[in-house]
């Protein structure tokens, strides 16, 4: 509260957050409060002058060292710290790490220099004391709305993935959770990572497949973000095959992965779990794949003729040219994923984590999207796929409710029931599950928390 008068709004928030960290996690609080650093204004001015005289790799290295040591020894309650100090820290960060110069011309790093910078950042985070890692990270990437900074973050995360720099990934995971995994910033990060690791290099990479073991929280948030990025609602929102393979592998191998973010919910007020998104994939997947398959089959003959002649409409056609083997592989992954997902939900029941991985409204939403995807006159194949989708929905609902890991809402249950009766093809399992749910009325589940 001491800083209120002098700090800018951003830094006020940042320090509030630090305080919040102190309050919630005893270990961080200890780290923050024990070290003290007294920096006089003149000293700060000196370091700035010195840095300005250095050229690129050296100035950044110096700056990082300075920042690390400063933040590591920082004691927020120290009386000698004035507004100037904060400003200098921020300025050093802007000038020599992010290269967003507040004064003078913008300095543009070459790609090689940028790689050097990323390398230095990685080492910096690896070497920094545990307690100050996120503070440094937040200082650099905490500000919102700067695309250049986000891009740098993306590159940093990408490099961290390659060199398996867990600290960076952990910070990024917290950043993702803080930003909400469904926010555009995070989606941008996810998309670039997917393009780096799944599209540019589609071959299976040990880096990505071992991600949960390096940083489970990052993997969890990454999945959440990826499921919202690729909604699997049609031809233009299919997830890349390799991404689906990675995700199904991850969930299959580590049933706790899906509740990683739920664990953090104890610390962070906001949380999102990958379960609703994954459920969406598993439910919509078979139907969408089936439709695409028939579309591909029907359009192959007409396509071969039209692709050469028409140039303007090729963009819409090109997305539907997904080969049948590719769709088969997707379906296989989805099968695996569904099983893994059910196991994950069941596992969550064992560890008794509150409040829930999935809510009725999520399921109702999925049912709605299913209705949109579902065509009015389905073919035999499509009917089959549709019943598979509805059964999966019913299974997840049943497992979630029986393990009491979901947030129930009577009105949504009713909504789903009417939807399944009137709009969707009949499915015996789903109607049975739904009717039991309605009869129970949520009473038999003690852990029901309405949000």
């Amino acid at each position, binding site marked *: 509260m001491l800083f209120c008068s002098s700090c800018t709004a951003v830094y006020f928030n940042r320090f509030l957050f630090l305080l919040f960290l102190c309050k919630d996690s005893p270990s961080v609080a200890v780290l923050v409060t024990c070290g003290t650093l007294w920096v006089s204004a003149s000293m700060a001015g000196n370091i700035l002058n010195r840095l300005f005289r250095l050229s690129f790799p050296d100035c950044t290295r110096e700056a990082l060292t300075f920042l690390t040591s400063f933040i590591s020894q920082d004691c927020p309650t120290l009386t000698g710290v004035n507004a100037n100090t904060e400003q200098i820290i921020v300025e050093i960060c802007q000038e020599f790490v992010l290269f967003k110069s507040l004064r003078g011309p913008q300095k543009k790093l070459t*790609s*090689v220099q940028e*790689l050097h910078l990323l390398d230095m950042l990685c080492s910096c985070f690896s070497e920094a004391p545990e307690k100050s890692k996120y503070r440094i990270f937040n200082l650099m990437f905490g500000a919102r709305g700067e695309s250049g900074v986000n891009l740098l973050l993306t590159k940093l995360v990408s*490099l961290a993935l*390659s*060199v398996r720099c867990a600290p960076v990934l952990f910070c990024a995971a917290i950043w993702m959770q803080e930003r909400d995994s469904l926010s555009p910033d995070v989606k941008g990060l996810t998309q670039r990572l997917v393009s780096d690791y799944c599209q*540019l290099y589609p071959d*299976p990479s040990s880096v990505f497949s*071992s991600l949960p073991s390096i940083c489970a929280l990052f993997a969890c948030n990454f999945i959440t973000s990826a499921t919202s990025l690729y909604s699997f609602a049609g031809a233009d929102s299919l997830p890349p095959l390799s991404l689906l393979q990675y995700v199904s592998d991850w969930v299959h191998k580590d049933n706790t992965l899906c509740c990683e973010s739920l664990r953090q919910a104890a610390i962070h007020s906001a949380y999102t779990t990958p379960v609703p998104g994954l459920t969406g994939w598993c439910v919509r997947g078979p139907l969408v794949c089936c439709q695409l398959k028939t579309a591909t089959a029907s359009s192959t003959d007409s396509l071969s003729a039209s692709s050469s002649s028409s140039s303007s409409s090729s963009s819409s056609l*090109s997305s539907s040219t997904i080969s049948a083997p590719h769709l088969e592989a997707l379906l296989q992954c989805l099968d695996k994923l569904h099983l893994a997902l059910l196991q994950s939900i069941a596992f969550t029941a064992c560890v008794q984590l509150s409040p829930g991985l999935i809510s009725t409204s999520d399921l109702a939403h999925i049912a709605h999207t299913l209705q949109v995807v579902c065509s009015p006159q389905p073919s035999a194949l499509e009917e089959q796929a549709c019943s598979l989708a509805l059964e999966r929905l019913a299974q997840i609902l049943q497992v979630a409710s029986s393990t009491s890991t979901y947030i129930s809402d009577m009105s949504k249950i009713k909504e789903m029931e009417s939807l399944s009766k009137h709009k969707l093809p009949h499915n015996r399992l789903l109607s049975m599950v739904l009717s039991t749910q309605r009869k129970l009325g949520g009473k038999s589940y003690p852990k029901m928390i309405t949000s």
Partner: protein
Amino acid sequence: MASVISDLNAGPGDIRRQVNLFLQGSTGSGPVSIDALSSSALFLLRAVPVARHAVLEHYAMSFDDAINTFLSFQDGAGGNMKEPESVHMSALQDVTGVLLSFIKSNPEAWAPVVSSWALSLLGQISSKYAAKRGIQHATSLNEVLQMWMACPPAQMLIEITTECFAAMVGGAPDMCVDALLEASVRYSPHFDWVVAHIGSCFPRTIITRVLNCGLKDFCSSGVDGQDKDMGGGGGGRNKVPKMASVVGILGHLASKHSQDIRKALMSLFEASVRSDSVSNKVTTLPFLLQLASMSDMLLRILTTDLVAALKPPVLNQLHRQFTRWKHAAPAEYNSFLNLVVHLIAKSNSGAYDIINFIICTAAPQGVGQGEVAQEEVRDTCVEIMHILLFELQRGVLSRKMDSSPTDIPLLAGLASQTDRLTSMLLSSEGKRVPWLQKLLTFTALQAGESCAANVLTSILFQARTPQQLGVFYRLKQGVELGMPGIAQSALVRVFSRLESPSSAGPSAGHSGASPSSMTLTALKNLERVVIVESSKVKRKLLSSSTIIECLRTRHAAMCDFLLSPHPAVSLSALRLIDMVGFPDDLSVTLLTQLCGAVTLAFFASLHQRSQTTEHIKSARMTQLCMSCIEQLSRLPSTRSLLIHYLVEAVVQKEHIHLFGGRWSPSTFASASTPAVASVNDNVSLMEENRQQSLSIARPRFHSSVYHGGIIRQSVKAHSAGKVVPKELVSRNCLTFIETLWLCCRELNRPGQVLDSASGGSEPGEEAMETDQSATAKGTSGYVISESCARTLGCAVVEMLTLDSLYNDVNWQDPDFRRVTTERDTMVWKRVEELPVLLSVIQEFSSSCVFLYYASPVLRSLMAVVMNQLEVSREKLMSGCPKHHEVAVKLVYCLTKGFLIVPPLSNVAELFPFVSPYEGYLLLLTLWHYIKDNPPSEFESEVKRRTCDNSHTFVVHSILHSNIAHMGHLCPRIFNM
């Protein structure tokens, strides 16, 4: 996953090490060998996605270095450069291989990344090293391309780029072409070779896409321009480079792929016609035109294809599409029109097609099938035409001002098509005429004298009506403003075309006209032109007509036409010659030629008159001939020539029958046409001699000569002579005599008594009556010139007598006629067969000079008559009608020529009443008188002669002895 061996699965420590190694090497902060550096770079490229930018940047520098080394090595600067270069090269080959494999295995993801890198690198390199030696001096794009392709690193880059395009062309063509265009704009013109190379690898796609990109750009900037009127300048500034690069790229591709470009342009146009989107409709055509305005090559394509595609239905469709736009933006519409006009003026190759198209649309002619262009479309075309003509006029006239010719391609293009334009002009009517006229005028002015002359010539050759010929005057007038001497050169052209019958004009082929009819048309047109010109001269509108002046130098050609087998042609030529007249300085040969030709034409006209029913036409021709002869005879040298020609021709076998004569070989074999006779009869001299030796050579006397003719020259199958009506014969004779008179006359000198030559004309010649009186009036001031009389006399004598042995002018003793019996008989026969000559003698006998020279003939005739009368047993002299008639005529002639004087001149009155012997006596008296008073050339001397009594004694005694029935004649004879 563990077993997959890939760089992606490298351990984190490895990656770290490699990253450090790479950073040290590329920043030069640590001792890293090139080999190690490049291997670590390759590793990073394969293992660390995020490092790809850095690695590519590093390789960009390597490529740059390699090219630099290569170029300086080429310059001869490096002797031992090979070592590092090969290291470089292997590294570059490695990375090229890796990138190519990336592109191949995962085109969607890698191609955009790599292509943008390769394109920008190529751009940088090409502009950076553009100033290097070698490249600097390369002028054409092809050379630059060769230059770069010889450089291995550049070749690798191009290979990578091409692969990228190949990968992207299927999926996202817009994106790659956009990138290409952008690079092209940024690094132009050094980047052109890249575009050219890539374009030639994917011509179809690149062309279509480039066009589409340009169109999209044009659309958006056009819409911007519409939205903010003031922002047009800014939009234009953005628009131009992109357009320029589009044009540049298409220009590079044009040499090899012009067909593709053509197709692409046309399909763009067709798509716009069919499309539903408003902006596409309205902008495509302006876009195409804008493109065309920036490149001649595209203009060429558009002019040929677009014009062919603009059929009335399409035009109407376009009209519907553009109406709203036109009303919405009148200013743009105007500039659009101006652009169209500008383009038309710039187009060269399809010039005629364009003009044809515009004119046909603006003023449709004939019954068009199918849809016809709407009223407003036509109005627009009319407007375009007007603006175009105005612009052309300005261009042509401004050239006049500063004498530096402004190049107007349209006119240059039209210059080669003037023939078609001319035919179009001649076949057109209404609004078209002034347009085409102006166009032709401008074309002629621009293209120079030969073209102008060509235009005028072809009009002269093609015009068939006076209206069409009117075009000639107007064009001439227009062109003369710029080229005063055009009429002359046009006529030179006309005659050169006329004189070469094989190339009677390229239009002869397509109009299907025979050369002679072409010639005829041209001559007739020339005739009309000359009529107009001369009337102008008469009305003092012109001081002198250049055309007429020029025609005067062309008599040689005209002469040839006079002899044309087609009567119409020769008639025209004659008319022209007549109207043009003869200058004084014609050469003798030409004059001779002309005289011959005119004479021939004269006789041909007479022939024609006897054969055809078109009397008026042939009469006209005869008259023209006479007029020509009259004009020609003004020159002293030609007079005698003409007289000779005429007289010689009149005794020709071919013409004789026209004048009531007969042709018999016996009389003419030795005289006028010996060669013909010998050829016809196959008489060889040797055969003749052999015959002579076998038989006794009998002297030719009475019995052998009189009746049998020459032995073995019996009467052949007498040429079934074309029988000419008597009336016609007499008319022909009259015409001939009149013609001769025209040749011979000269102005009367004061103090001389004249005697009308035509006084003794025979009655009953209604057809010639008017002419006759006209000539009579005209001749009132004329007399026969002495020299002509001399010539004519000699000619007549030459024609009629066998030899000149006894052609003494003086009359010998009457008994001397026994000696000359044979030749006298011959003369008689000839005169009998050529009655026209007798008429000639009769007509010209008023000239004593003529009579002086013709006296041998008269004497021969007199001798024959006297011989006959002396032995005749008839009761009256009129019993021998032929001789009586000749005697009367003889007396008449002698009287007229003052060879005999009254009262001897009146003895003819007695002839009907006297016996043959008395007639003989009278003639003998006349002979004696003439012997005593020989013929003289001097008229004054002749006129002073009188007759003394010794000569009238016979007359008196005959009168006395027959006083019973001749008494009443006494007073008349003796003037009592």
